[in-house]
């Protein structure tokens, strides 16, 4: 016993069992219902897009880390989340090479070149989506199909905006996901299931999704109707597009959202306002991803402006 070495370290000597891979695992689990729904709705094509995107994201991460001789940490699950989220943002009929390039862009340019996990200033999946949208607009904005019958169709937001004429899906169809849209965004029920799981597990905070969805609902209700104030189609606006996917899974990305509680409220409201602005008056039918990217960039400023009042410090009153 005499020569047995005791560890001496600074307190605390107790650590929670929560680890980064566990948190990432919970997010992946929460994305599972939407992934399954997507396979049911869009068939093997969805499975192929998701598999290719996921695999290329993992390959990109591993390859880069090998090249720069860093320890390979693809097991932490963050690259898998990026890959899956990117796949969720693809139109079902996208050529398969598009998401592969997207994955490499997301992982290498947006994440690793800025310092890897925890250092990226934008959500990698969304930045890659914006890149792909600008690079290959045709591949990224056509290829919307109706689930099951595979017929090309306009998305509900294009219809709402008057950019295309088609039947607006019923509410139950929106809930289940019987509408044209990106792979992972259509099934509201599956997304809500995953989102509430993350809230229940305490993985994400209610403030960002709550304020985001709430703001979009309020603004589209107030200004989205043709018959004057407060005649907008709230349900259609909240259940269509990438709102639920973005609010629960992408705006809440730890790395690119504020660390303060008040900051998360600002983030949610900001995302909501920009989304509603683009949807109602902008040049695109959908604005969720741009709104999140813009708020990502503003995050350091939001954090600085919303630092909490230190315990015991009274706000200085103007004399």
């Amino acid at each position, binding site marked *: 016993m005499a020569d047995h070495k005791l560890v001496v370290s600074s307190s605390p000597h107790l650590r929670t069992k929560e680890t980064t891979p566990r948190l990432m695992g919970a997010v992946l689990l929460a994305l599972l219902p939407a992934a399954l729904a997507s396979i049911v709705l869009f068939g093997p094509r969805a499975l192929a897009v998701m598999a290719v995107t996921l695999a290329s994201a993992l390959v990109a991460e591993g390859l880069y880390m090998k090249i720069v001789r860093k320890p390979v940490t693809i097991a932490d699950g963050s690259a898998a989340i990026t890959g899956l989220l990117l796949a969720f943002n693809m139109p079902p009929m996208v050529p398969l090479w598009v998401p592969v390039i997207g994955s490499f862009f997301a992982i290498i340019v947006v994440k690793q070149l800025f310092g890897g996990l925890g250092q990226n200033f934008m959500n990698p999946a969304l930045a890659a989506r914006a890149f792909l949208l600008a*690079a*290959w607009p045709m591949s990224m904005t056509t290829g919307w199909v109706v689930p099951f019958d595979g017929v090309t169709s306009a998305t509900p937001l294009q219809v709402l905006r008057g950019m295309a004429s088609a039947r607006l899906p019923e509410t139950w169809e929106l809930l289940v996901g019987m509408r044209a849209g990106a792979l992972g965004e259509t099934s509201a029920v599956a997304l809500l299931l995953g989102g509430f799981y993350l809230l229940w597990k305490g993985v994400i905070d209610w403030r960002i999704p709550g304020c985001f969805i709430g703001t979009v609902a309020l603004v589209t209700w107030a200004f989205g109707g043709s018959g004057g104030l407060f005649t907008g189609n709230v349900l259609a606006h909240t259940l269509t597009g990438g709102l639920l996917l973005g609010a629960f899974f992408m705006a809440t990305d730890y790395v690119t959202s504020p660390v303060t509680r008040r900051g998360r409220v600002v983030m949610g409201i900001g995302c909501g306002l920009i989304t509603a602005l683009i949807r109602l008056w902008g040049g695109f039918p959908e604005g969720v991803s741009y709104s999140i990217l813009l708020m990502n960039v503003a995050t350091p400023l939001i954090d600085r402006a919303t630092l909490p009042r230190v315990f015991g410090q009274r706000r200085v009153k103007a004399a």
Partner: protein
Amino acid sequence: MNLWKDFSNGLVRENPVFRLVLGLCPVLAVTTALMNGFWMGVAVIFVLTCSNVIISVLRNFIPAHIRIPCFIVVIATFVTIVQMTMNAYLPEMYDILGIFVPLIVVNCIILARAEAFASKNRVLNAAADGIGMGIGFTVALMILGAIREFLGTGNLVLNGTALFGGPLFEPAVIMIMPPGAFITMGLVLGLLNAISNRSKARAKAR
């Protein structure tokens, strides 16, 4: 020997775009194609060399207090010459480069070389520096232009002739849009820094 050193300085060691990171406005704006970069570079070589020579000749006559306005007058003269010549003989290229030809007047590289080099060195050295810097600038623009044109159109056009029959792949339009300029510039800059850091580290290890 000295002349060669002044000439080669701008090629790699102090490449105005990749090392000094000066004059980024035309670098980002006109590098949508290889030939655009080339002609922009030629214009800069001409202005830079001529203004370097004149300023070097006049360096003992220009009063220190008003040297910047004097430099600008000299530079503007040559820019006007370039502008008129291009308009006359290369009207299509002149249209493409547009505002960025007159903007050479306020290009940081030219003023910086006038201030930092030409006004302190003899005529021949100033000329060598101007040509070297100009060529370095041109090469950088052509590299960026080639990358962006190839990725953004799937082809390369050399002096009016396309190198390939048609696009080799579905082009990434973003590369010939403004974001493409930033992405390309950032990646090339990062790559060159990585290479030079590595060779520096290797030299240190030895």
